[in-house]
């Protein structure tokens, strides 16, 4: 049995009919320690079979444990469904918000306000969902209070808003949201069409005109370059290749730098030595007289000795020469 307390005005408890055969359902209800067991006074029927029960406002009391008992009488007996214990304040489904109004605020802000047919505003929480014509998904945001602000809006877009309500956790614990309100739109339809045409226009420009124009310009540029070598040379200068200059050196003259450079033969000859030097072997002899100094071998004459006159040096030289 599923019960819903609609806007705290009336309640319906539905059980449906899963049996193919004709079954006679009867519902009994009572409030624990408050009222005696009573049968449903107003049944809801589907093809002559009771499928639900309607409770008026006086029959629905909140914050009192509510018990329901469903009886199904078949041909061969009566089936009793276990009784359910319910709290009506947790089954409230408020009515959808009404009187949605949109106001244009400064700074491109939109303010959405609404009213609720449910009497106790402090017990409600709301949820707003909106989408522009350019969005793919809905954006759903929770709201406390009756005002929702959209911080920045695009004047070229077309927005749609929906609002719904639920009893908040300060007055009950329920998951039952109301139905979505009637939609509220903002932004005009005509701008939407205009935008589409504009979009097509831009599309043609971007995909056809621009590529063709740019390729034409490129073509002209290429032709100019080919025809005017002056421009070509400035844009694409020849990079000098020095390797050709060295072909002569490495191939013709076989790496002989002097030959390739053109150095004259006399200069080349002058660097070659044209004399021969004999090796002079030298050895040291021990002195015969201890006073006689020893001299190093050389082609030079020994230094002049003081004392004996120059007339007699040849005599003096001889002994030295002999000893050497």
């Amino acid at each position, binding site marked *: 049995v599923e019960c819903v307390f609609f806007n705290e005005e009336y309640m319906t408890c539905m059980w449906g009919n899963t049996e193919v055969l004709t079954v006679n359902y009867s519902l009994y209800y009572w409030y*624990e*320690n*408050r009222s005696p067991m009573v049968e449903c006074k107003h049944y809801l029927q589907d093809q002559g079979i009771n499928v639900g029960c309607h409770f008026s*406002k*006086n029959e629905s*009391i*909140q*914050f*009192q*444990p509510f018990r329901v008992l469903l009886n199904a009488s078949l041909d061969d007996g009566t089936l009793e469904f276990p009784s359910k214990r319910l*709290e009506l*304040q947790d089954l409230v489904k408020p009515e959808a918000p009404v009187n949605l109004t949109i106001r244009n605020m400064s700074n491109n802000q939109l303010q959405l306000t609404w009213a609720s047919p449910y009497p*106790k505003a*402090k*017990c409600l929480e709301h949820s707003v969902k909106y989408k522009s014509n350019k969005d793919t998904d809905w954006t759903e945001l929770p709201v406390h209070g009756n005002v929702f602000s959209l911080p920045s809006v695009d004047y070229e877009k077309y927005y749609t808003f929906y609002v719904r309500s639920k009893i908040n*956790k*300060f*007055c*009950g614990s329920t998951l039952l949201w109301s139905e979505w309100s009637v939609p509220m739109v903002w932004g005009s339809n005509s701008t939407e069409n205009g935008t589409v045409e504009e979009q097509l226009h831009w599309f043609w420009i971007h995909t056809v005109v621009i590529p063709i124009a740019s390729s034409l310009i490129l073509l002209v540029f290429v032709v100019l370059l080919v025809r005017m070598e002056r421009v070509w040379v400035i844009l694409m200068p020849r990079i000098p290749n020095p390797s050709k200059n060295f072909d002569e050196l490495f191939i013709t003259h076989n790496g002989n730098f002097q030959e390739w450079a053109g150095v004259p033969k006399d200069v080349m000859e002058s660097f070659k030595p044209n004399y021969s030097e004999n090796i002079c072997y030298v050895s040291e002899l021990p002195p015969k007289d201890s006073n006689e100094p020893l001299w190093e071998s050389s082609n030079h004459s020994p230094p002049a000795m003081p004392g004996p006159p120059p007339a007699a040096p040849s005599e003096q030289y001889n002994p030295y020469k002999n000893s050497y």
Partner: protein
Amino acid sequence: MERMIVFCMLLFCSSAVLTASPYDTVKYKQILKTIEHLNSTVKDKGAELVHTPENPVDGCRSMAVACFQKGVLKLQPENSQVNSTFTRTVKILRKFTFREPGKQCESSCESYEKKTPREFLKSFAKLMKEFAKCTQINLLEEPVEIVVVQMKCD
């Protein structure tokens, strides 16, 4: 000298009072949230059962509130870590009173069935929701004394 001491004491006391007050102002909304918070931190298994008022009749609601506020003192935190916040939240729940003038109540706290701490808190929350919904109380105000002549929920 004595005057100085007296003055200093007064100054100290007033500053203590001022610093204490932020915790004291608690909106009605917060009381409900507090009960939910307690529900998650209270020791339930193996804890002492508490007298739980259920669906008090007209006239017995004020007594039910008093019973709830008394019973809250018997609750224990789940572990020692939540001890300080637990004590503070319990204090918050005892700060307000509920009055139904002109009505008498026959039953007492002990006449109600004893239940587990979680069920106790669930019933307490239910009663507070009933006050929130069915009275003129402003959820954004600090409740000190709630005086109700008639519960309008029908």
